[in-house]
């Protein structure tokens, strides 16, 4: 089932003393989620991504705009009639019910012709439990489970009614780093197995990049960019998106263009064609640096961090907008740590130029 969001807008009354004014949590959000895809809503906290999720599931009413599931307009439907399954941030497992009772709970609400017998309910619940691989834990209480297991129970409960759309609100934020890695693969597997269109919300770009078919980057209620994760990473439309995606973060420098040459400090580091002479913000991905003895960019070396597969070179520069410049280079390249200066050449494709005020990307130019 594809999900279409049309000009979705949510305004909240502002909570200041006068009680006037509005806060726009989501601003004219339009997006189409293709059938069976996993979409990550990504953004810093307070960017409206959870509000969007709650509007899709029906817990919050949009101020403007429509929501379609397939061809059906579901904007005015209450959540229970939309056929959505939701996994909440802290799972919201009922602590007084066993795992099986938790999973059965949504089924017990069915009325009329959909009503199931006890055996049917149990069978369906066990099926969902098997899907998330917790069938041997069904007699336990949620408090007797680990975080990862609780997460699975929550997913099983959301899936037991075979929803058309599965929504996950920060599904991994309560898990430790190792479990997070494991669980996100698990979510991906379950989503692939069931083929249910899934939307999940996260502030963790790595999480979103690693499992999503598509990501939507939001800021202050406004969609910044949508697309395949790799595309958005390589081709960010503005400084915010560039900064938000990628670990380590993109390195930023103050620079300027003079006569087709990009200057960082006083060093001409790269030839850029078709950019007017102007001061601008230079973004260089950590993997965009190449160690080279006569490279054009020289930085003050701070330290070298060896991380096995590759080496992280931490340095500083007067022109840098971040406290340190972090570059990742292949571990094969041996580095003389005695040097105080380190010189780099740049990979042209990893260098992005942004307008100083608007923060829009101006180089490379949009592909269209």
């Amino acid at each position, binding site marked *: 089932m594809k999900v279409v969001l049309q000009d979705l807008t949510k305004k909240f009354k502002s909570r200041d003393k006068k009680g006037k004014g509005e806060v726009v949590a989501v601003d004219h959000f339009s997006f189409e989620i293709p059938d069976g895809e996993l979409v990550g809503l990504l953004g810093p906290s307070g960017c409206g991504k959870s509000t969007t999720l709650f509007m899709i*599931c*029906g*817990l919050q009413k949009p101020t403007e705009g429509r929501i379609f599931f397939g061809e059906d307009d579901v904007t005015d439907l*209450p*959540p*229970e*009639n939309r056929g*959505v*399954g*939701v996994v*909440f*941030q*802290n799972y*919201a497992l*009922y*602590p*007084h019910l066993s795992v099986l009772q938790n999973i059965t*709970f*949504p089924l017990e*609400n*069915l009325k009329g012709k959909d009503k199931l017998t006890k055996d049917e309910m149990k069978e369906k619940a066990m099926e969902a439990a098997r899907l998330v691989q917790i069938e041997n834990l069904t007699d336990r209480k949620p408090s007797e489970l680990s975080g990862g297991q609780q997460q699975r129970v929550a997913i099983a*409960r959301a899936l037991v*009614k075979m929803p058309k759309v599965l929504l996950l609100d920060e599904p991994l934020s309560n898990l430790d780093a190792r479990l997070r890695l494991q669980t996100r693969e698990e979510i991906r597997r379950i989503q692939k197995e069931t083929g249910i269109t899934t939307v999940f919300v996260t502030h963790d770009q790595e999480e979103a990049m690693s499992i999503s078919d598509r990501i939507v980057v939001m800021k202050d209620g406004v969609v910044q960019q949508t697309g395949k994760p790799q595309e958005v990473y390589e081709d960010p439309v503005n400084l915010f998106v560039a900064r938000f995606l990628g670990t380590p973060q993109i390195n930023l420098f103050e620079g300027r263009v003079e006569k087709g040459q990009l200057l960082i400090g006083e060093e001409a580091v790269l030839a850029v064609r078709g950019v007017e002479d102007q001061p601008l913000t230079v973004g260089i991905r950590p993997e965009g640096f190449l160690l080279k003895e006569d490279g054009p960019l020289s930085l003050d070396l701070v330290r070298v961090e060896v991380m096995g597969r590759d080496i992280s070179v931490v340095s500083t520069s007067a022109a840098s907008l971040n406290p340190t410049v972090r570059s990742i280079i292949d571990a094969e390249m041996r580095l003389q740590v005695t040097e105080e200066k380190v010189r780099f050449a740049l990979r042209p494709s990893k260098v992005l130029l942004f307008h100083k005020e608007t923060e829009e990307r101006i180089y490379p130019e949009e592909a269209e």
Partner: protein
Amino acid sequence: MENKNGKAFLYLLPAILFLGCFMVYPLIDVFVYSMEEGYNFASQTYFSVGTYNFSYVLHDPYFLQAVKNTFLMVVITVPISTGIALLISLALSSIGPLQKLFQTIYFLPYVTNTLAVGLVFMILFKKTAYTDGLVNLILKWFGASSVDFIDGPYWAKMFVLCFYIIWVVMPFKILLLTSALASVNRNYYNAARVDGTSPFRIFYKITLPMISPTCFYLIITGFIGAFKEYSDAVALFGTDLNAAEMNTIVGYVYDMLYGDSGGYPSYASAAAILLFVIILTITCINLMVSKKHVYY
């Protein structure tokens, strides 16, 4: 280790001394008194040791009346006050505007002086030479005959007393229940709504289990409080509760000590021990029941 323990006991000493003087010693003393037959207060002498005091108290019609009154009160006031408090708290927590105002209004009885409350109840219920009381006026409008609530039939007096107690204990229950309701994570309700749970089922299956610890706390303390009821009866019916047939067990104990017919610390002690046994039993039953029904 030895030293550490010594230090710990040093810190505990003030509390131990205080509790020992004012709690443990009197408790033991009450028990001793209750076993001393024919104790004479003036000469501090007694004839023998035995269970005569208990048998006297248990055959005293005033005591039996007090036990009957107390049990009736407990059975009526505890469930009703907890139930109404729960309804009010649910209503309070589901309204948006004016919630703070209503919360304050419902809490006012808690900070109101007992005697002031008694006065209001007099105006409502007492018959005087000049007026029959507000409630009787209203009853008359509906064509019913007037009832003397303060000096009249037993059921009328019991009604007023229960009404009074319920009204007095409610604010505290509402306060605790509203905060318990507020502490239930909203996501549980969101999850239930997404699954299409009916409001009644949400209340019965989610809200009630979640606040069950508070509910049982209120029931247990409610039972204990109601068994120790005395001052409210005095506020309504005056100090001669035996004459009004409205005495409570604690009232009986007090009368045996200081009342007009008082001066019998042995009987008072025996009655106090009996009350203690009753409360202990009821509380144990409560705890056993709560183990089955309270989650966490």
